[in-house]
């Protein structure tokens, strides 16, 4: 079997509003549109994913929070209806996904080799979180590429931030080795917003874009700073400011997805491509893509 590799990484935020606004057949709730800049950004990502022809998409979602260890879904087929517990009026989505269970097993093995607690989630009745579903839908609404959902271990919330992020670096390395061993072309996806303070009230209808804006100027400034560092490929500087960004902008990347993805990509110096930035009830969302250079892929 040929050695596998990661062909791209995406920062792919998961507000259910984006699926709601698109009116796909899978969602029972219908809208009048909205959040177009983010949805257009995702359209570009979809084209990119089709062109890359990956065998599997791995997604790390903060809404599947696990307390003991890092979990990988290892059920071959998962299907059902996902109703968002926070925005149930926007997201009632019928999903069906094929999971690369062999890759899940390799990820678990490699994570344990890194000294991490890791586990396979094999319960067929498991309710996959809406964050995983939204990011995967926005990247591949046909669901015709196998996936591997990865949980967000909550250690960054209980240990120090540094300890938690160190775990994600190890998990990223482990994921990259597992992909190599599996011999697949993989896309790794961090399902995270950037600044993450919401408004507590939404307009009626929710897609009234005249009311949509960033929650605070400070959040906006942080988002722009972080995006700029990623666009310029200044990964070391990005990692240096990440703790301050997380604390001051209440950034969702605290849950570790971004660090995991960057680590899996080998902390690429490649400039990330910004497909779009937009806010969703005040939170800052950037849709970004990293295509590692041949050297970095080695």
């Amino acid at each position, binding site marked *: 079997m040929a050695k596998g590799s990661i062909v791209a990484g995406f920062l792919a935020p998961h507000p259910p509003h984006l699926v709601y606004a698109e009116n796909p057949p899978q969602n029972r709730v219908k809208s009048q549109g909205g959040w177009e800049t983010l949805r257009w950004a995702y359209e570009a990502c979809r084209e990119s994913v089709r062109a890359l022809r990956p065998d599997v998409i791995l997604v790390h979602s903060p809404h599947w929070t696990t307390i003991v260890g890092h979990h990988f879904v290892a059920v071959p087929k998962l299907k059902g209806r996902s109703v968002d517990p*926070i925005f149930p009026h926007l997201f009632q989505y019928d999903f069906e996904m094929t999971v690369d269970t062999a890759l899940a097993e390799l990820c678990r093995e490699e994570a344990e080799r890194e000294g991490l607690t890791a586990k396979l989630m094999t319960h067929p009745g498991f309710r996959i979180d809406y964050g995983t579903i939204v990011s995967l839908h926005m990247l591949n609404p046909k669901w015709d590429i196998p996936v591997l959902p990865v949980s967000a*271990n909550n250690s960054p919330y209980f240990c120090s931030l540094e300890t938690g992020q160190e775990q994600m670096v190890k998990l990223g390395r482990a994921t990259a080795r597992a992909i190599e061993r599996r011999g697949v072309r993989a896309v790794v996806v961090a399902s995270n917003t950037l600044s993450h303070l*919401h408004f507590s009230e939404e307009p009626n209808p929710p897609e009234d874009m005249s009311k949509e804006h960033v929650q605070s100027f400070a959040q906006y400034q942080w988002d722009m700073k972080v995006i700029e560092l990623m666009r310029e490929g200044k990964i070391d500087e990005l990692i240096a400011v990440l703790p301050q960004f997380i604390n001051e902008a209440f950034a969702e990347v605290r849950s570790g997805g971004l660090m995991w993805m960057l680590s899996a990509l080998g902390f690429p110096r490649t400039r990330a491509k910004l497909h779009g930035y937009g806010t969703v009830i005040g939170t800052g969302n950037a849709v970004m893509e990293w295509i590692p250079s041949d050297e970095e892929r080695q």
Partner: protein
Amino acid sequence: MKGQILAGVWVPGLPHVLRPERNAGWATLYRGISGLESKISALKPDVIVLYSTQWVSVLGTSFQIQPNPKGVHVDENWYDLGDLPFDFKTDVGIGARFAASIGERMPTKAVNYEEFPIDTGSIVAMRLLNAEAKLPVSIVSSWVYADAAKSGELGRIMRETILSSGKRVVVAASSLLSARYFTHEIDPVADRVSSLEDDAWNRKFLGLLESGNFDAAASQAVQYAKSSPLDMQLNAFHWLRGGDGRRSSSGTCDRLRANLGNGGCRGGILYGTRSRKMKLETINSPRAPFPLGNYSHAVAYGDLVFISGIAARDPKTNQVPGLKLDADGKKIGYDIRAETRSTLENIRTILEDAGSDLEHVIEVNTYLLEMKDFGAYNEVYAEFFARHKPARTTIGVASLPGHIAIEMKMVAVRKRNG
């Protein structure tokens, strides 16, 4: 007729408490919460209003108004602990009233969606407080942007709404105390509070609740939150306190027990019932050999635990250790040392599940079939009671049931504060 809040209840909403056979602390929590069911039932409420920290909302406080949520939930963390079936009746009217009252002052939503993901905290609390779903429930979310003041205000508005509703209500909070989990796999048997500092704070806080001093508990909560990671910043407490118009009534919050590294209060009635009238509580340990007659392993009355006459039996094989029988089932040999050890181990297990231990035994009565066995029995006994020596009586008897050579009964006191 004016409505009434009959009682307030605090329970930890982790699925571990539904698996009492795996850990003595979980068993204590299970018994504690289950014991509240009969207390609640005796109060004859119209509805339980349940605040769950595991239903997190962003757009203000949400209220479940789907008439009959039902399904099977698989917890995202603890799926190995088993499925969580649920089938509630919702008090739609009171949920809608709450949303309307709160909506005048704060953001809120009434939620009515098929297949809405009911959270583990709500399911666990209802499984134990309202096992047969006889009572309707109104589930309240934990608003992520509510601080102590807002949570207290929510409690006050809900109290006003309950009083004007004419309903008799038990309010319940499904929440942990300290929420510093172990982050690696542990043997459930070895579960304990993960941090001594958290443990000390949990005990201090529970002590204030136990003495009915809600105001002091609220002022201490600020420092408590700085020292320990608290479940949703202890908003469930502020919500409960807001719902308590008197604020300083007596409480009977029971012992603290480990719950996968968390501090969980053993489901105590915090306010509403002023009386501390003690009730009988029967105890049967799932870890000890099952009773062979019409009796319980133990009965507790307040802090006193009365252990039934217990004999030697292996809880896994149900065999008497050391006993030899011939082909006709006639006793041809026994080992008094093995029987004494097995008897004391079984009693120790029952004591643990009753919230006590051998160190808290007051009185022991031993019945020996052969007084010639006294020396051997006494030696083994001394291994179990090396330092603490309870009052003891040893009597020779003409016969004992089955083929046993020794039976023991004890009286113990429950441990204070776990």
